[in-house]
């Protein structure tokens, strides 16, 4: 059994996973030692979750392990019979899920589900309750005895994740696989959860496989890091080494395209295009990163480069400039603050409230109402980028919907170009929609799947009389060029586009009426960092070329800092702090803003993170 120090708990030897014969994960080798944390880092679709799925034997249809082995305590999990594997799962190997709320059964109480797990671990019935209570206390859940009677939907995401963590550690497993365990949570909850996982992992000397898209987070949580691109390991090594001295152009790009929370604001360097989907990995010749690589040469596409040692335990799959420090993507020019002209604001929101009356449920019981927005006042000048930050439920999205007239304000005034448009009808409505356009969070569901791109981007022209087909096509082409989309995508349908392309189409569509202000609600949160950087830069370019303003709603402080000169911090429907972005984020005054800033892992690895007070009880 694993535990004898030195021999790895989990070891992959040339592990290869294929999709209908085409290699997806290629020749993966790594080892996780007892008590060690290995980070698997990559963008969505890079294959990082595949390893957890090989262990749990939950590979999607069509995928199969076609080579190599995955040893757990000396036994090959790949060839193991179903029954001995089941005996390992939940006992010696445990999992922490990405979506804690859906990972628990909605019709069973927390006590029933935890009890079932202990039953599976053969804990005698009489001891189970005490075990559960002490396990829930360990993950710093307050009043654990009361939690036993509750159903998962009565708990917050962070509380559910604590329950999942407590269950994972209940059997003192040798290995825990945590797949994006904090991605679905708010930033401050993320810090708490990281703190708890890390603390328990240290106390129990559990090995941890930490799967994430976030290189910065991984460098804080992990001992070693392994960067995956299109199913290949491109770089692996000690976490600090990889994050402070990344050698592979892809790792460097990941870092360069992730805006920092401190230092000079520089234009983000971006990679072209996007990683192909999993089915396309096998058709990438040679180095799979070559087609997007800024330093490729002719040889890159002809042979797969080997992993080369570039430092102690630090290996890189690149034949090129990985050996020197200054090649690859470097951050661009410093951004200069755009002076605002002194004209009147495009948008002025004055003391706006939104009250939702409690609904009567099917039994006729009236639930108490909620004030989603409590007296918000915002104004945006022409060409100004204003950010609104806050956690889920802070009212920031409601405010965006009020601005757009998708909801009616309970009280207060909304002015566009000095005209009161609060009454959302007739002329006021026309003025509002002529000046303001919205881009939505989910690029997929915002696009009608049965319309080609050309009809999507020029959709508003259907309402205007007399716009002929030729005029529409010309406008569509111009919008495509402006948003960096190839014109030959015009006759494609949304399902044929990548996530980044879809969000560009959404932006192009919003630009069609030449609005003066874009309202953008979490428009990059579903995108990978390299694509996110492209979209952020596009927005900056649009300010230059069109002088357009932006009301940017986001939970990501670093992104807001990169784009916006002014920021509002919202909590429970209230604006708790506002001001120039650098001032608010650099020297936050309100305790809530301070906790938000503290929850972001700092660039400087010498600054400890997560903050010690992070894992308080909930």
């Amino acid at each position, binding site marked *: 059994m694993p535990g004898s120090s030195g021999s790895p708990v989990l070891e992959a030897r040339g592990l290869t996973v294929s999709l209908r014969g085409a290699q997806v994960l290629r020749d993966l080798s790594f080892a996780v030692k007892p008590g060690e944390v290995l980070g698997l880092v990559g963008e969505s679709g890079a294959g990082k979750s595949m390893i957890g799925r090989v262990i749990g034997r939950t590979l999607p249809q069509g995928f199969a392990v076609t080579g190599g082995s995955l040893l757990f305590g000396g036994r090959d999990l790949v060839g193991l019979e179903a029954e001995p594997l*089941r005996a390992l799962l939940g006992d010696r190997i445990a999992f922490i899920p990405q979506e804690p709320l859906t990972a628990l059964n909605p019709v069973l109480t927390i006590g029933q589900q935890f009890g079932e797990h202990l039953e599976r671990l053969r804990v005698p019935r009489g001891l189970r309750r005490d075990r559960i209570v002490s396990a829930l206390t360990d993950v710093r859940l307050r009043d654990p005895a009361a939690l036993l009677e509750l159903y998962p939907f009565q708990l917050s995401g962070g509380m559910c994740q604590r329950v999942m963590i407590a269950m994972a550690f209940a059997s003192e497993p040798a290995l825990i696989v945590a797949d994006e365990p904090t991605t679905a949570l708010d930033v401050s909850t993320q810090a708490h959860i990281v703190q708890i996982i890390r603390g328990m992992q240290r106390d129990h000397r559990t090995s941890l496989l930490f799967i994430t898209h976030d290189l910065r987070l991984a460098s804080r949580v992990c001992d070693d890091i392994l960067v995956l691109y299109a199913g290949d390991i491109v770089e692996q090594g000690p976490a600090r080494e990889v994050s402070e001295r990344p050698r592979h152009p892809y790792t460097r790009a990941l870092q360069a395209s992730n805006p920092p929370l401190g230092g000079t604001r520089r234009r983000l360097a971006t990679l072209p295009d996007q990683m192909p989907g999993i089915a396309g990995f096998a058709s990438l010749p040679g180095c799979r990163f070559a087609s997007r690589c800024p330093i490729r040469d002719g040889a890159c596409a002809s042979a797969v480069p080997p992993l080369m040692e570039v430092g102690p335990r630090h290996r890189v799959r690149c034949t090129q400039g990985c050996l020197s420090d200054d090649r690859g993507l470097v951050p661009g020019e410093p951004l200069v603050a755009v002076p605002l002209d002194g004209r009147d604001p495009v948008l002025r929101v004055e003391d706006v409230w939104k009250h939702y009356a409690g609904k009567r449920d099917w039994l006729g019981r009236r639930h108490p109402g909620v004030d989603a927005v409590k007296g918000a006042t915002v104004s945006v000048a022409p060409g100004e980028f204003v950010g609104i930050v806050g956690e889920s439920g802070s009212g920031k999205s409601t405010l965006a919907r009020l601005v757009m007239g998708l909801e009616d304000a309970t009280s207060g005034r909304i002015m566009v170009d000095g005209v009161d448009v609060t009454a959302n009808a007739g002329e006021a409505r026309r003025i509002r929609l002529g000046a303001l356009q919205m881009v939505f969070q989910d690029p997929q569901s915002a696009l009608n799947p049965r319309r080609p791109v050309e009809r999507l981007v020029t959709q508003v022209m259907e309402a205007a009389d007399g716009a002929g087909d030729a005029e529409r096509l010309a406008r569509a082409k111009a919008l495509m060029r402006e948003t960096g989309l190839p014109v030959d995508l015009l006759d494609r349908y949304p399902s044929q586009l990548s996530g980044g392309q879809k969000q560009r189409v959404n932006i192009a569509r919003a630009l069609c009426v030449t609005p003066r202000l874009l309202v953008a609600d979490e428009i990059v949160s579903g995108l990978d960092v390299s694509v996110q950087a492209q979209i952020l830069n596009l927005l900056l370019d649009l300010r230059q070329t069109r002088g357009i303003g932006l009301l940017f709603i986001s939970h990501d402080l670093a992104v807001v800092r990169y784009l916006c000169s002014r920021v509002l911090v919202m909590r429970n429907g209230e604006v708790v702090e506002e001001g120039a972005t650098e001032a608010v984020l650099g020297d936050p005054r309100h305790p809530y803003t301070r906790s938000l800033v503290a929850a972001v892992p700092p660039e400087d690895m010498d600054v400890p993170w997560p903050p010690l007070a992070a894992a308080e009880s909930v």
Partner: protein
Amino acid sequence: MSRIALQLLFRRTLLAIPILLCVSALVFGILRLLPADPIAMSLPPGATAADFEKLRQSFGLDRSIPEQYVIWLGRLVTGDLGTSIYFRRDVGDLIAKALPATLELVLLGLVLGVAIGIVGGLAMFSWRGRMGEQVLDLGTTGLMAIPEFLWAILLILAFGVALPILPFIGRLSPELVLPPPVTGFLLFDSLVTGHLRVLGSALWHMVLPAFALAIGVAPLVMRVLRSSLLDVIQEDYVTQARLRGIPEHTILVRHALKNAALPTISLIGVQGGFMFGGTVLVEMIFAYPGLGNLMVDAVRNHDLPVIQAVGLVYCVLVLGINAIVDVVYLAANPKLRVA
């Protein structure tokens, strides 16, 4: 029963009042507007116009329709359902005799149908992607394509005529006498009074009609349960249970079935309502002395008071079964109880 369940039942009862008023007015109005003449049907051929008028007056049929409705409604509230024009008996008595028979039949049909449906749904689910699923799939399609009454006839031909093993007429073998009524429910009464031969015979007589009714429910329950199970098995919590090493059969029973039951329960509510409609023809075909047969006789004889009353009883039964299903649904879905 929990407070919420009682609240729900109370609300349902309140809601039932306007529904029943509307239904009764509708049935009453339509029956009066139709060219149906109950008096002519019940008089001997030699009757004079004076006889005719006298009888009309005795049944109150000479008054205006709204007046008749108000009188009928007023008596209804006191529990007086009127007198059958054809049978010349109290309508309440007629229904009291027929209703238990129908309830027993529907209950047996529903239990049979749901049981077959659940077993079949589980079988279809566990044989997914295999030959067995396709056979059941094809089978349920066939079952659903044929209506209950045709099944009744086919079952009689198969198990009553070609292979004479099951009775298909009436409720009891002719040589048996009814046990003294306790509740009016034959199965219950014969059991508590110790008439086990009567009980056996009654059950034996119910096999074919109950099965004909069950066939209307079983395939739908099967399909809905199968597809809900297929949905639920994709859920995150099922994957997580597997990753905790919970055995597959425990996952099916404890995690999947509990969630998949919810849409199935709703469906059973709807189907239970339909089943009362199915009894009308099925009872007639099997000469089963229930509400359906009473209704058919009443319609045949333009017996307005009986048609009205039986119509209303059907309405109450459907509302009742829906309320029961809602309570079951409430018990099965904690989100409705606590959210």
